[in-house]
């Protein structure tokens, strides 16, 4: 009964102050909502182990991550065989190589479509505990040399490309122009290892190789149930050392500069290695925001207790038991945090829906969304919410309860005032303000640096024209365009491939809506495959003391189509094909920095590698082109130097195309499709999008996370501004009588103002110095994920501290001024 009375009383108090109630509930909802959202996001994407119908987590075994190019690195099949044979702690193991495949119907000229394919070990379906819905899975015999080419199709291909054809199983289709038998159909949603849409058996020599090769494999594995992951990593590390010691020189490129090669990582983390620190930062920021929210709500409730101090004193005088008083102080927290918790579920659910939309958008063109990238609230998240609500009730209820229990009630009842502020309470108030400054500084500095880096990256000048340009990747079916290894065929096969590209270019350029066509391995704004290069006559003693440049393959007559210019010398031409002299084109930055006298043309350079390899020998510079920026601006590997090699001599089976068009983008895309059909309908164009979209692709996730940081930043500003004001105002209000005394003793307004402002400056100095140090430390952790530019540091480290300084000074000035403006007599009798 008495508890009911307390509950009614608490409800009445909250009802009486609707703004206070709404504000605190909102702060709690925001803090918990962000926590719940981030937990669900990180749990789904990163931390919750991938189990796939079994109870031991899946791990990935691959080479050490390439932080320079932000890419996962593969392992030699030979080393996987060693792991398979020697590591007893592995229970299940399989290798795979992801790529794309051009799928066509068996009828001639029916056209092809690109799908994500995986060449994989037959056990992949048993490993993942998923069976085909039709037909059979792969078998060990499918790997054997001479076995009939077979494929297991994903549900989507069957439904959309083969229109749910009933007799698809056992039928023959074209995969990369090779007749292949469909042996099974997998259920909807299955795309293990990551994004597979069809599964082909990997060649037997990749499973049981007898020698090292340039194979490009990854592995999935499960450890035996009693095996510790850390012990397995140690074992792998020991194997790694052995391999590093024995690997032949021509394969030493597999080992990184620190001697690292093989690594085992939880499967989900392996897929987001380059975003890992960003996600962790996000988690840190959100925890800080939750703390900020707790402090704010705690402080608001504390201010309430101060208002109710006399009431509390009367209750104490009437003999309220200590527990009951604490409970009463907690009741409001319980209500606020519980309602806030319910709202948090709505916020988080909405955020997760938005995130799913962002993921769809990110991978719309490439269809490379890992199958587990579908975020939602799960039971764990709800349990976390309940625990967070309980923790928040404890934190936000404890501060006012402590205050309520630590007051001098006798003095309050005797004097009719709240009595003077205790030293402990004064210290707690200062600590609250410093914590608010510190936390908001960290959150805002990180959010601002990330946001402005993301903004600057979006604004980066890549040195190319992107308006009215579409890009795509052109893939030739290897079956139709093989490169035979015998020397007498190699050149002819290469030229056959490039002939396709130039035919396509000619066909397109004859169309009225096409202004120009360029082929390049990666267009500016993407790519960034870099290596050192030596300049003849100026070769550095050690390979890595030479300059470093991006290397791209480019077609003849490509520059104008993307707004680049030949500044010196000439473009590649027919005379460079299979010429005695290898030719190369460099960009303006290389020419200016290394050939300042304008004599770049005619000089010779060559690529240099760690293992002493000087791939391709000397190449003569025939031209200098305008500068471009290869690689996303988010990548640390982006270099100002670029070298270009002629496509004709290389003959890729795939290449990126950029088309400068007039009229509509849709018409340009249609023109490209028409041209391909005209030249060879078995070739395929995919990843078709505007050049601007191409550039923004690598930044979509960073940009989306930046938006979460922006949201965090806005929330942090709101929490910091309101919190700092509330804490400062509450703390100053507690000193109203002291101000009255000082004024009575003759302190002028300015003396009082100075007293409080000086204290605010001290709090600022402490809070900001710790906050800035902490933020820099966190931001430094992220430099392996993205380029943090100098401008962003300036914004983060000057604008944000200034903003906080202004907030704190205003938050101190306004309430102090308000009290100073009171007549001293009123201040002295302030209740």
């Amino acid at each position, binding site marked *: 009964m008495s508890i009911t009375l307390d509950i009614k009383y608490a409800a009445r108090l909250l009802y009486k102050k609707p703004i206070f109630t709404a504000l605190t509930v909102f702060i709690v909802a925001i803090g918990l909502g962000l926590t719940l959202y981030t937990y669900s996001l990180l749990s789904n994407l990163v931390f919750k182990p991938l189990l796939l119908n079994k109870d031991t987590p899946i791990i990935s075994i691959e080479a050490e991550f390439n932080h320079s190019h932000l890419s996962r690195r593969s392992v030699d099949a030979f080393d996987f065989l060693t792991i398979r044979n020697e590591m007893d702690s592995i229970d299940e193991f399989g290798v795979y190589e992801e790529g794309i495949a051009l799928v066509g119907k068996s009828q001639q000229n029916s056209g092809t479509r690109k799908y994500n394919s995986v060449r994989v070990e037959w056990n992949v379906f048993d490993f993942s505990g998923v069976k085909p819905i039709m037909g059979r899975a792969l078998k060990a015999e499918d790997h054997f040399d001479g076995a009939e080419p077979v494929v297991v199709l994903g549900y989507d291909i069957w439904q959309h490309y083969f229109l749910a054809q009933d007799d698809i199983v056992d039928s023959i289709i074209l995969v990369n122009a090779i007749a292949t038998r469909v042996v099974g159909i997998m259920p909807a949603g299955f795309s293990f290892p990551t994004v597979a849409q069809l599964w082909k058996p990997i060649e037997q020599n990749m499973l049981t190789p007898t020698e090292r090769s340039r194979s490009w494999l990854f592995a999935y594995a499960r450890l035996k149930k009693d095996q510790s992951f850390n012990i397995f990593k140690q074992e792998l590390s020991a194997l790694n050392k052995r391999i590093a010691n024995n690997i032949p020189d021509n394969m030493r490129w597999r080992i990184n500069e620190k001697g690292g090669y093989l690594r085992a990582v939880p499967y989900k983390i392996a897929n987001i290695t380059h975003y890992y620190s960003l996600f962790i930062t996000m988690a840190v920021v959100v925890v800080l925001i939750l703390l900020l929210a707790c402090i704010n709500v705690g402080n608001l409730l504390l201010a309430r207790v101060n208002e109710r101090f006399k009431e509390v004193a009367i209750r104490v005088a009437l003999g309220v038991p200590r527990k009951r008083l604490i409970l009463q102080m907690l009741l409001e927290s319980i209500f606020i945090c519980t309602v806030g918790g319910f709202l948090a579920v709505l916020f988080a659910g909405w955020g997760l829906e938005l995130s799913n939309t962002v993921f769809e958008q990110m991978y719309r063109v490439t269809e490379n969304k890992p199958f587990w990238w579908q975020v939602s609230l799960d039971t764990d998240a709800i349990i976390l919410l309940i625990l967070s609500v309980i923790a928040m009730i404890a934190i936000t209820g404890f501060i006012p309860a402590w205050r309520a229990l630590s007051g001098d009630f006798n003095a309050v009842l*005797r*004097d009719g*005032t709240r009595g*003077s*502020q*205790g*030293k402990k309470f*004064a210290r707690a108030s200062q600590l609250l303000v410093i914590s608010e400054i510190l936390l908001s500084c960290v959150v805002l500095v990180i959010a601002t640096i990330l946001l402005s880096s993301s903004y600057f990256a979006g604004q980066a000048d890549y040195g190319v024209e992107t308006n009215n340009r579409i890009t795509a990747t052109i893939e030739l079916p290897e079956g139709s365009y093989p490169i035979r290894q015998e020397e007498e065929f190699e050149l002819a096969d290469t030229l056959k491939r490039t002939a396709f590209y130039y035919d396509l270019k000619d066909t397109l350029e004859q169309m009225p809506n096409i202004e120009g066509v360029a082929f390049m391995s990666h267009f500016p704004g993407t790519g960034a495959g870099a290596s050192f290069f030596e300049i003849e006559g100026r070769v550095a003693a050690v390979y890595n003391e030479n300059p470093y440049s991006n290397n791209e393959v480019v077609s003849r007559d490509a520059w104008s189509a993307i707004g680049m210019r030949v500044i010196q010398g000439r473009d590649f031409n027919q005379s460079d094909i299979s010429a005695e002299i290898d030719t190369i084109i460099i960009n303006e930055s290389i020419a200016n920095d290394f050939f300042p006298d304008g004599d770049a043309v005619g000089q010779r350079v060559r690529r240099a590698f760690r293992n002493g390899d000087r791939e391709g020998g000397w190449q003569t510079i025939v031209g200098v082109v305008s500068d471009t920026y290869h690689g996303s601006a988010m990548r640390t590997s982006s270099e100002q130097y670029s070298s270009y090699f002629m496509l004709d001599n290389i003959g890729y089976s795939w290449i990126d195309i950029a088309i400068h068009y007039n009229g509509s983008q849709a018409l340009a895309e249609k023109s490209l499709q028409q041209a391909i059909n005209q030249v060879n309908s078995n070739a395929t164009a995919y990843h078709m999008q505007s050049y601007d979209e191409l550039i923004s692709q690598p930044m979509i996730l960073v940009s989306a996370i930046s938006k979460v940081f922006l949201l965090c930043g806005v929330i942090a500003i709101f929490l910091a501004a309101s919190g700092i004001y509330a804490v400062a105002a509450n703390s100053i209000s507690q000193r109203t*009588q*002291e101000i*009255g*005394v*000082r*004024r*009575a*003793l*003759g*302190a*002028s*307004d*300015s*003396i009082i103002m100075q007293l409080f402002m000086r204290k605010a400056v001290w709090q600022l100095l402490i809070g900001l110095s710790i906050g800035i140090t902490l933020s820099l430390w966190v931001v430094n952790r992220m430099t392996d994920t993205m380029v943090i530019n100098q401008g962003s540091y300036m914004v983060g480290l000057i604008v944000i501290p200034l903003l906080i300084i202004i907030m704190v000074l205003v938050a101190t000035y306004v309430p102090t001024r308000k009290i100073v403006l009171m*007549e*001293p*007599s*009123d201040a*002295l009798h302030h209740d």
Partner: protein
Amino acid sequence: MKSNNNSNNTTDISNAEKATQVLVKLHDIKKIFYTDDVETHALNNINLTINKGEYLSITGPSGCGKSTLLSLLGLLDTSSSGSYTLAGHNVSDLNRDERAAIRNKEIGFIFQAFNLISDLTVAENVELPLTYRSDINTKQRAAMVNTALAKVDMLHRAHHFPSQLSGGQQQRVAVARAISAKPSIILADEPTGNLDSKNAQIVMALLDQLHQEGATICMVTHDPRSAARAERMIEVFDGKIVADQLTETPTAIAV
């Protein structure tokens, strides 16, 4: 006992021969409080003169306006109308900082609730009003603090915090703070209201001593025995001075 209850509240002690001694002169002072469109006349046409060296008490029932009167005298509040002259200067129209400067130099306060600042030591509390003056250097301040504390016999507790002192000791420190800057007038608001009789006696004895040394003291009190120690007693009722009389023989408080 000489009494003067004239209708216009003027006192017969503000005579010509004492004119040169006048320290405080209130003329037609009114104080009106406004709350929710309700006017409360806290003080009505107050006319009061206090001479240098005088020791007067203000008495009256709760809510009669005596504390408001003391606040006006201490420049802690401003009147709604009327004029106030302190030490020959019209202080009615001073701005906030000028009033603060006058409070600092001319007025010493002793409050019922002591109002010591809990985070400052005894010496620092006493020093506080002196720190607001630029004409006193650190050395002088230290000397003045020591003198004031010695006078109230609290020198030995100079480095203690208020919370380490008894109520009586805190009020003695408050007295020391009030006299440290050698003010023209000491305003005491129920100085013994929070004290037991023994400590009350000590504080009242201190005020007596200060008066004997020439201090002008104006004390608000409920306690007739305390009021009787003053040489002049003013009674306030409903915002008006209803009695202004000299006590014939100020008496010591019986312990």
